[in-house]
Every structure is written in structure tokens, then in C-alpha cells.
């Protein structure tokens, strides 16, 4: 079965992190993170 070029490029991009014990790229792909604030992190 031939893989889509897009999937191959994606797989290459994320190749190294998949060597980490317990890593599951599918979980990351399905995950959603919200970042509130895109600028400074000041605390005072």
C-alpha cells in the first residue's frame, strides 16, 4: 500500500520524539491545548 506524501513528511517531522518511552503521536495529534496570552509573562 502506498502512503500519502503528506503522511510521510509528517512522520519524518515527528520521528525523533517518537523514540521517547511512552510517546504516542496519535494522542498528541488528537490533543488540544489552549494558550491564554501570547505576549509577556509578567507577574507584577
Amino acid at each position, binding site marked *: 500500500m502506498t502512503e500519502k506524501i503528506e503522511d510521510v513528511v509528517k512522520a519524518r517531522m*515527528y520521528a525523533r520524539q517518537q523514540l521517547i518511552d511512552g510517546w504516542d503521536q496519535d494522542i498528541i495529534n*488528537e*490533543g488540544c*491545548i489552549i494558550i491564554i496570552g501570547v505576549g*509577556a509573562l509578567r507577574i507584577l
Partner: protein
Amino acid sequence: MGIGKLILVDLDTIETSNLSRQMLFRPGDEGRPKAEVAAERLKEMNPYLDIDFFFEKLQKLPMSVYEESDVVVAALDNFNARLDLNKICLRMKKPMVEGGTVGFEGHVQIVIPEGTGLRYKNKKNEIENLVEARLWEITDTEYPDYYRAQREIELLEEEIERIKNARINPIVNKIHREIELVFDWKYAPELLDQTPCYRCLVPIPPADDKLVAACTLKGLPRNRNHCVIKAEVEFEKKYGHKPDLNLNDEVLKLKEIAQIELEKLRERVFDENVPLEERDSLTKEQIEDWKKNIRETFGSDYKFEEIENILGNKIAAIQTVSSVIASVQSQEALKLLFRVNGRNIGAPMDPPYVNYNGIYGQFDHLNILKSDDCLACGKIEGEENVQIVVPFDANVGYIFEAMEISGHVLDSELWMITDPMTKEIYWNPYMPSLKDPDVKLTSLKIKSNDIITLSPLGKALAESEIKKFNVVIAFM
């Protein structure tokens, strides 16, 4: 790293001073929404990312946006926004990774709300802590032999090990077993599944910047920051609009006005310290010395960049520290993302708070504690703590004004002000004798950092979610 979806939220637009520290922005982006530009740049770096952005206040976001998210990263620049986001995360049961920096220092705090089901601490250690605490509590009558044994240990040091094994450890083991038996239902939810929240660490948020500005305008400027705040108002009077700090010529005009205010301040201080009748007896050099001292005390003439720093209440910030803190936040968010989805690639940091000092290159983990009195996650309901800044000559009526500036609009006809310790009533709208808005706070013997209580009456008692404001008064 291919997070499926990122949602970026920010109400700000890009300013020139952001370009040296916020790496996703470039010259030419000034004036554009930060969230939009950041989304654009991240998409350039990784076209497979699904990114949404909101040029919106976090408080105005639909709850469905939070609901959709597995992890919330707080990358904010003020206390109140952090407190609001903390509240939302507690309510939505979303883990939050909070971060902040000031100059060469920064911190990251993980907040795991009750009910997320995320295990974050080591069960064995927590049982040990409870056993230890229980041992301090047991009484002579409960375990008399334990006490006798302790005394014998002091006398018979050489026999410590033998006595421990024979008479201490059995009791320890018994308590251990007792705690272990009930741990999962009695202690685990609090000890394993949640952390202190952000509000636990900030029980009384510092006064709103707007209050400081309001106080400054009520009196004469008394320091170089006051002069710039005053100059902003003078600018608006003169040109009919607030100065745009992104426009160089407007900042220059503002600087000129602030400089005039600073000169007036220097003159006032000179007049107060060197009365007219004394001046004749002073030499030219002595007068120059006075003026030099005043100049040193209140600072030199304004520099261009100082104006925006003062008006924006800006603090020191540097890209290196922001990068360290953002990296720690990202790492924690990643572990939580896996954990939320049932996979463990590492526990969240424990203790859940780390401080970073860039000067010493040092990370310190702080064992922060959950507060039972916390107004966000604790047992107290219907209370709020507020700090207000008031001018020295403020009166009782100003308290309601200051509360309004702090975001709490209270009808003075429906709220009572009392001293929480003595119960003395400072304001009662139902009693004409206690309803004088012009009474000075100082005449009521209220000092800086004293606490007063505001309680609702009548309709407000029924309608207000907050049944008690604990207000810390700081004189300015």
C-alpha cells in the same frame, strides 16, 4: 511537535517593544493582533497544525472553547487575568500550567483542580506524611505505651533499636495500616488528585493599577511616575484624545508635558525644604547643592522609552528568561496532555511550583500548600478579598469609588462598612448618623494596611454573590 490543535487567545496588539522579546513577531507586525500573527507564524513553521485564535478577553471566550481544550497554558501579564483564568479552570476541571517572569526571575505553577482524576503525587509519600502527622496527634491515654516507650528511649539510648522494634513500630504499623485502609477514599482526592490553585498563593490580589493612577490625579504629583500619569491627563485635555504610545511624536509631546510636571515637583520640594526667609542666608553653592540633591532624589530628566514603561506599568523583561519559563510550561503541558488522554510519559512536577533565577542559573521547587480559606478552591464561599489604594485625605465615600475602579460596583445605599475586629460601623446607609461620605478615613483611625469589611444589606444581600468584601486599605 504536532499538537493536534492549538488555541491562542490574546487581547493585545503588537508593540515595537515586543519585537526584541517575543520571537514570533517581526518588524512590520506592529498594531496587528498578537494572537493572529502568532497563529500565522506557527502555521508557517508547521502547516499540519490546526490553530484557532481569538482576539478577545479570556473572560469573554465561550466556555465551549475551554471545554474543547485538554490543557490550559496561562501566559498572562497581570494578576486579575490569572485569577479569572484560575477560576475558569477550577470550574471546568482543566489542568492549568501557569507561568510568569520578572527581570531575571520566573516561575511555573501547575494547577490540577479537584475532580480531574489526574494523579499527580506519590501515594506512598503522602501516606507517610499522614502517619507522621497522626503520630504527633495521638495522646497519652490513647497510646500510653508509646509515650512510656519514648521516655525509656531517652534513658536507654543503647536499647533504642530494640525498644523501637518491640514497642514503637507496632503502633506505627497499626496507624500505617489504618491510614492505608482509608487512604483511597479519605485522602486521595485531596492529596493525590489536585494541587493548590493560583488563588491559594494570591489571597489578596494587589491593588489595580487604575487605582494608583486615580489617586495620583486627586493630589499633586509626588514622584516621577506621578508626573507622567498627570501628563497623560494634561495631554488629553490639550489634544482631545489619549496619547497613542505607538506614535513617536505623541510620546515626545507627552514627555515634554511630563518634564514640566517634574520641574514643578522639584520646585515644590525645594520650596517646602528651603523656606523663603532662609534663602538669603544660603550661599549660591548651598542652593545649588539643594537643587542637585532634589534632582538625584526624584531622578534625572525623562528619557523617551521611560514614558511608555511608566504609563504601561511595564516591568523588566528579557527573552532568555521568558524562553526558560515558556519551555518549562510547554514540557508540563505536554505531560499533562498525555495524562489527560490516559497515557503516562512522566508525572507533573512535584511540588507543583518552580522558581527560576537566571542570575544563579538555579531552579528551586517550592512546596506550596492548598489553603482551606482559599476564595477560589477552599471552603469559604461568598467572600472576596480586595486591596484598594486611597489618597491620604480620602473619605468614606471614596471607598465606594475605589471599589468601582477595582471592578466591584457597589451601591452605597445598600452596603455597610465595618471594622471586622471591633465591629465599629463606619457607614450604614440606613442610619443617617452613620451616612456621612465626607468623613475622613484618618479621623476614623483607619491606618494603612488596615482591613475593613463591606457587607450587603436589603436587596444587595439577596442579589449579590459576594456576601462579604474584606478590603485592605493602602494609603498613598
